[in-house]
């Protein structure tokens, strides 16, 4: 029991922090431009694929730096020449644009890399068990993932609150016109934030690719979960994104590791149903079975009862 709990916690932490890397960029972009970027997870996928291709020539470590930069530059270009053009047609057009972009990126990835899963592996240096607990290994690569994610969080927090650039960005979120009047190039700031945000997503892809497998559907798998996190945490709140990421990561991890379900609940209540009861499927549900839908359930509940999210200040 205890060992299951510990490993579920560690795995939840890895997933949660990974999700945070995506969510932090998404929430930053949202708070600046008011655009929920549907294609955010697609940049994460691009990160993994770029890193795979680069690592074929140079190995993992240069790819760790190069791939996110490339993704970030691509993101900035898309903001400059795509999103900014659509901006005049309103918010719905922007959402629809990023939605189409997600579709397009998935198809483009299939065009260049094919449909099959790519053999993108973690570097040999990190290919050893960090420690063994109750006979189970904890791979060093997962510790590396945790380390990178925490480093990013600290760096982001430091830049946003302790540097001049961060202060300008924060001011541009709430008062873009004033910041513009003070002589700062606000569209340029937007482009940079979009670039950094997508770059972070790319970095998440680089380090997640070897663990979560690199295939054309990887964006879809994470895409809507990241959305859920940003909304639950409160749109535009970095702290909220962190809390919600960890919450979702741990929740899913615990649910998968647990072995309880409706039968236990019914036993405890002393109720039983025949096997041919019309709702038989529901009476036999187990927690691991419904783990994938828990985030969405949470999302709908949060939106109904607290539309601004856990830490959010505004609703849309």
């Amino acid at each position, binding site marked *: 029991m205890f060992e299951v709990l510990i490993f579920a916690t560690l795995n939840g932490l890895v997933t949660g922090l990974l999700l945070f890397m995506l969510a932090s960029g998404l929430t930053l972009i949202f708070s600046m431009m008011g655009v929920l970027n549907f294609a955010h997870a697609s940049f994460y996928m691009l990160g993994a694929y770029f890193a795979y291709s680069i690592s074929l020539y140079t190995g993992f470590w240069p790819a760790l730096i190069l791939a996110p930069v490339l993704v970030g530059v691509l993101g900035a270009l898309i903001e400059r020449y795509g999103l900014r*053009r659509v901006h005049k047609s309103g918010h719905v057009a922007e959402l629809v644009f990023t939605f189409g972009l997600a579709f*397009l990126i998935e*198809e483009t990835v299939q*065009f260049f890399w094919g449909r099959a899963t790519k053999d993108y592996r973690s570097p040999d240096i990190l290919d050893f068990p960090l420690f063994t607990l109750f006979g189970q290994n904890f791979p060093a690569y997962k510790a590396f993932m945790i380390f990178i994610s925490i480093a990013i969080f600290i760096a982001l927090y430091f830049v946003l609150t302790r540097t001049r650039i961060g202060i300008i960005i924060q001011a541009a979120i709430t008062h873009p016109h004033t910041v513009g009047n003070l002589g700062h190039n606000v569209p340029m700031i937007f482009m940079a934030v979009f670039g950094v945000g997508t770059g972070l997503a790319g970095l998440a892809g680089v380090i997640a690719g070897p663990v979560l497998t690199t295939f054309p559907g990887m964006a879809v798998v994470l895409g809507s979960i990241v959305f859920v996190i940003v909304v639950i945490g409160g749109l535009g709140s970095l702290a909220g994104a962190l809390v919600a990421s960890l919450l979702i990561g741990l929740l899913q991890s615990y649910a998968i590791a647990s072995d309880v379900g409706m039968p236990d609940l019914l036993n405890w209540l002393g109720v039983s149903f025949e096997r041919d009861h019309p709702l038989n499927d529901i009476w036999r549900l187990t927690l691991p079975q*419904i783990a994938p*839908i828990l985030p*969405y359930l949470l*999302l709908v509940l949060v939106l109904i009862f607290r539309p601004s999210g856990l830490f959010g200040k505004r609703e849309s």
Partner: protein
Amino acid sequence: MFKYAVWIIFALALLLLPQVFSSLLGISILSQMTIAIVFALSYNMLLGQGGMLSFGHAVYFGLGGFMAVHALLGIEEGDYFFSVTLIPLVGGLFGLLAAIFIGSFSTHKAGTVFAMISLGVGELIAASSLILVSFFGGEAGVSGDRTYGPTFFGYDFAQHLEVYYLAAAWMFVATLAMYLFTQTPAGRMANAVRDNPERAEFIGYSARRVRLISFVMAGFFAGIAGGLFAVNYEILTEQNLNAATSGNVLLMAYIGGLGFFIGPIVGAVVLTLVNSVLSHYTDLWMLYLGIMFVLTVMFLPSGLTGFLMMHRTPWHLGKMHLLVKPYILTAIPGAVFALSLLAMVEMAHSFETELVFLGATLNSDGIMSWTLLMAIALVAYVALRRSLPRLREAWAQANAIDRGDQS
């Protein structure tokens, strides 16, 4: 008079089309179109008319469809005794019920909150459909047979043509009903709430209730589309209510044009054609579809219909002739440019060395083919860059009201 003429022509077209495209493929594409039209129109009740961006509209389509298949199974086993012609109504009513339930908590707000709830509910139901096997049939889905039950004036709907006419009849009625809905006070208020919910509240309407009415109606018609799908394909799977189907209907409505009633019809027809024809010729059709979608959002934000409607002013001013020449001068290099890019994409994708593109044999390993195509693309691009300013000038001229016209 014009109003009635449009509907009569529409009905006649529906009657005559299967005579023109009488092959099995033609009829199957036509049936697909009718279903897509109902679905896309129902989606536009939300987004175009009500201002509610939904990422989970396939839920009502799928739920209606699944219920319809279960009704087909019920008829087959003799539990119910009614004609297959009424099956779409079963789907519609179930879509309506689902929409009442989900709309009761999702229509409080429009905008991002609504979009996110629709996304969450969509994912929730799509994921549950794999768990609740007795209703959704798991991965395999649920299949039925439409030929049981009492015949409808001697027709048992074993033939595809009969199914087309059934679908077309339902589509005509549904389209008419949705059009008439836009003319009712509820439909007009949906527009008002979309444009300014605050003002609508000031004149005494509950924005939420107006949204709920639109939402429920959209769910009903999506359910009808699902029921038609059930009758046509006799099978429903998880794919019919997942995010991809929701995305597809958004694509149709948007490419067609949200601002016009006829927009989603155009979108549904064009996209169904593109899907079935393009997928016949190339396996990259999804890529082209994505490019088409992104370009539409960027350059034609009001969709294909919106683009056509932009010509109303020049038409009324009698200045269309000014546009003909610039259009041709832009369209030719534009088409050549696009086609040469397409040829290069196909060459890069092809595993075989030789491929035939529009009758020309290309060698994907040879430098000749590549240089030639690049040269063509370059020339076309330069010509396009030169003709565009002229088109812009002509456009401004065609839309300008001369002093003489004003009197």
